[in-house]
């Protein structure tokens, strides 16, 4: 097996990173004390000072894409399981879709409600024999890739439909074996997300799958 280089140094909670303020969107990853920046989770920092978290919890933002499973339709709104700490709802008055328990939906967060509820909008129901894969939300940017290059590679290479939620739920639909291979590659990306040369490796995995 080839060796892959780490993309930066590893820092643990409490380690001093650099001078400066908390970068936007990194509130749960780093913290500031007296103008100095410290790590709050295990993370990597490269020479330019960019922070890549190795593990993190998901914090919902307006506009995030979400994949969820409908768990309750009894009340005035649909309750959706999105696998993270926030409660998620679809306001049934605002949406035209009719949903049943167990349906998989894809939408975007339109509103955050105090203290910990998110409202989904622009909801579509995902129809087909798709499977939902659960990955840590911190690894989702790596599965999508730069300008969604990795996602396109997976979709076109394996001929599957994929919807990726920022909450870490991924819906995959396609031919049986292709879906299994897609799940295998996604799990590989999760455990190897901090290493370089990932796109080439995934490319080779897809090619060897096509030959077999």
């Amino acid at each position, binding site marked *: 097996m080839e060796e892959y280089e780490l993309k930066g140094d590893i820092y643990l*909670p409490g380690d001093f990173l650099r001078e400066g303020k908390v970068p936007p969107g990194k509130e749960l990853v780093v913290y500031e004390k007296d103008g100095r920046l410290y790590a709050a*989770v295990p993370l990597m920092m490269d020479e330019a000072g960019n922070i890549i978290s190795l593990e993190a919890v998901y914090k919902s933002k307006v506009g995030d894409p979400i994949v969820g499973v409908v768990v309750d339709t009894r009340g005035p709104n649909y309750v959706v399981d999105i696998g993270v*700490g926030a*409660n998620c709802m679809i306001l049934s008055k605002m949406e035209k879709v009719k949903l049943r328990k167990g349906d998989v939906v894809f939408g975007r967060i339109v509103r955050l409600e105090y*203290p910990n509820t998110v409202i989904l909008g622009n909801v579509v129901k995902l129809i087909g024999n798709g499977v939902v894969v659960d990955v840590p939300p*911190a690894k989702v940017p790596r599965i999508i890739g730069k300008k969604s290059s990795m996602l396109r590679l997976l979709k076109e290479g394996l001929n599957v439909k994929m919807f990726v939620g920022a909450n870490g739920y991924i819906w995959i639909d396609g031919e049986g074996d292709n879906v299994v291979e897609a799940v295998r590659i996604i799990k590989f990306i999760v455990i190897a997300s901090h290493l370089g040369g990932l796109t080439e490796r995934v490319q080779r995995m897809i090619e060897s799958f096509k030959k077999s």
Partner: protein
Amino acid sequence: MYKEGLKLIKDNKRIDGRAFDELRKPLRLEVGVLPNANGSAYIEWGGNKIVVAVYGPSEVLPKHLENPFRGTVKAYYMMSTFSSLEEHGRAGPTRRSLELSKVIGEALEHIIFLEKIPATQIEVYILVLQAEGGTRVASLTAAVAALMDAGIPIREPAVAVASGKVDGTIVLDIGKEEDNYGEADVPVGFTKSGEIILLQADGKLTKEEFKKAIEMSWNASKTLFNLQREAIVRKYQGEVNISFDM
């Protein structure tokens, strides 16, 4: 408890052959051992074998425990029925397991950024597979590693280690016999900057002896901080094995 004729210290050595300021061996910590948990850790510390799983942040249940300004930490310390002799082998919550759940949970509350994850809960399940004295300190050390593995934002790492008085001498990391037949036991937990997040005491100590016990624990905590660091870094270094089962 006093046992007639039992000498816990002979020729400047303790009952298991250790020096006064020596930690038990083996001392091994591993993270990411349970794939279905958000974070997990396994510690072997002398005869202690403990698994810790961290789930969350998730919805707070029951709902009345939800705090709209802060997260909630729930720690569950459990001893397996085969972990030890005597009352420790009893199933279900006991006086002891409730106490340890409380002190470990409160120690963890001090290092987690709970204000950053309001209205959520973090569950920490601690299962003692084998016990040989000092499980609360080993559990706390492993629980902090599991929190880091789960990506829960924390201020700084924390570890715990017990010191005690045995046959009139202050010793580090007391084992089962020393705990049962010794004179005092002081488990103490430190953050990396030296704050004390856990302190219990059982037995009698003078002021000087107490001070010496805390100092001894603090000196030993550096070994444990290194242990935690190595366990987390090991997860991301070396080869990645992709031949796993689906």
